């Protein structure tokens, strides 16, 4: 049901069936069950924060009550790979850290997504040297890159929103592409 409030058109839901109808129109993936799956995955992305460097402080600021990533469904209650969907890598990754990162990624259960925050995780940043990995895409497949040194909390929130759009539109994660 569409109504006008102060001259702006808004939708008002009358019952649960109308909510489901709206969802099926909004999300473009085919098939009823696929739509339910994408909707539920996108709205409850649990996070495993792989925090090493300065960008971790901006991730903490993005979780504080004012910026509130929790309202998007992103929670970091337990730091366990088996419970989480989204691996957030922020900070410089060095050659010594590569076996650890690969092991943690392998321990996560399907389906999983990866987000690289900051320029050090995306491409090595301003550290071009003998011990720094020039981008974590050499180790694990990455879905979303958030540039900045460090990116502001608002940029991190936009990264998460872009990822939710991709999931709702049915774009598969890079893990699924590689593994059938």
């Amino acid at each position, binding site marked *: 049901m569409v109504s006008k409030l102060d001259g702006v058109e808004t939708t008002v839901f009358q019952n649960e069936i109308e909510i489901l109808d709206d969802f099926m129109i909004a999300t473009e993936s085919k098939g009823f069950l696929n739509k339910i799956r994408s909707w539920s995955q996108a709205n409850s992305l649990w996070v495993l924060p792989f925090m090493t460097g300065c960008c971790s*402080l901006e991730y903490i600021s993005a979780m504080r009550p004012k910026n509130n990533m929790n309202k998007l469904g992103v929670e970091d209650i337990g730091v366990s790979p088996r419970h989480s969907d989204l691996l957030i890598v922020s*900070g410089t990754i060095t050659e010594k850290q590569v076996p650890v990162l690969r092991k943690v990624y392998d321990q996560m259960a399907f389906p999983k997504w990866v987000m690289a925050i900051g320029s050090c995780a995306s491409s090595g940043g301003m550290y071009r040297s*003998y011990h720094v990995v020039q981008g974590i895409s050499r180790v694990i497949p990455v879905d979303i890159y958030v540039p900045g040194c460090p990116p*502001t909390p608002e940029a991190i929130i936009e990264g998460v929103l872009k990822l939710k759009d991709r999931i709702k539109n049915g774009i598969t994660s890079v893990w699924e592409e590689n593994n059938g």
Partner: protein
Amino acid sequence: MDNHISDEFIKRFGDDNYSYELGNHVVVSSPQNLIRDLTILKNEMDFIMLLDVCGVDNQSRSEDGSRFESVYHLLNMENHHRVRVKVPAESEQEIPTSSKLFNVANWYERESWDMFGINYQSINKERLLTHDDFIGHPLCKDYDYNNPQKLSQSREIKFESTSSNSEQNSREWINIGPLHPSTKGTMRIMAEMDGERIRNSKLEIGYFHRCFEKICENRTYEQIIPYVDRLNYYSAGLNCIGWCKAVEDLLEVDIPDRAKALRMVLAELSRVSDHLICIANNARDIGTTTNFWFCIEAREKINTIFEKLCGSRLGFSMSCIGGINYDLPLGWISKCLDIVNSVKKDMVEIDKLLTKNKIWMERTQICSMSAADAIEWGYTGPCLRASGVNYDIRKNRPYYFYDDVEFEIPLGINGDCYDRYLVRMEEIRQSLKIVTQILDYLPAGDIRLENIDYSKIDNKEIYSFTEGANGELGFYLIPSKNSNKPYRLKLRSPCFPIYQSFNKVVKDQLLSDAIATLGSMNVVSGELDR
């Protein structure tokens, strides 16, 4: 007083081996005489703390003379003098280890072997900062910094059996690995457990080694400023001021008064920011998430005032060599004073929740460190003051206007986590007091020097030190001739010796006490691994 000390140096070491340049005493020694000289300095001349041991590669600097040099920095805590001892060494020549005199020398010598290949007798030749499969010594001048090497497998946990068979069966080896909330992704502790008690432990660092020192040999002095900001990323302003002061002391230039006062404001606000997040992390590891968010909210107010100043919340490079980059925008001073008052009110709330809380007191009155042990293990900063030693560079060797403002130094009694928490809380209040005093009487004038001339740098070296948030932040800088890039830059990071003593502090303690202690030491990996 300097003449008196110089005479004593000349009497003990001879006129050929002693020199005085740019405020530092320098003694030249040799591998045969090293232990004798260090014993004289420690026992008879009261240089009781070893600050730093590093290596220098002389290959590109001079044709004659030895290939390597091992440089020691010592501190006398009574008359606040520092001395540098230089020991020339060829490649493969053995230098005796000074870890029997000073406990703290162990990791420094391991790092010097890792980076240069300097051969110290009887140290554990295991890689400290680079990984186990690394071939070569990266800081030598003939190693290309763009030459990466890969690692296939992490180091395994292995403890030698020192006890009988029945005891051995009840011990378990666990890994408090890099991905843990309290180690923040960059430190690893391997522990041999007997039930809940840690009987033996080993540390592995180097997960965040970003090759700061090698990169800086290829950058100009101004280009190093963004790298320096990201060393101790909790308090970025303090590192930048330490670096700019080192270069200005080397060039022997004096910056304008307004720049000095503004640098002090930025320094004290950064110090407040660092202490707040240290308390926040310590509280979260012990279990109280409410206090974590209270401290983060207070810290966000300081981030907003930095953003109003220069546009960046973290990693702001406001200092430049010669002063400050830009002047204050209109209305900044009144906003800053408002935020200082607001943070003071937040401190009252945090205090009410934690200080007299019985659970907090029982969880943090553990793992105490006596004053003698703290000096032996190279502690500086709030961890040293919590053990009862009255040492702060802002009072003992004041720079800028620190002897014109009124503030006090809080001291602890036992040196446990509770005392470190109380010392940090009081230091926050004293820093806010300094900020209000300076902003009331800010001098007018220029904010930076016009022309910095790098052509006058001779064959001089300098060790310049400021009071960082964790302790003494020192830069040992050797300039190169005919160029505005440094030849060698060594950072004396305050949390490196503090983390080295973790094995000793945590022996025979409970596992949860170990996690609480780690939070109170404030080990920042950008500074630890460089």
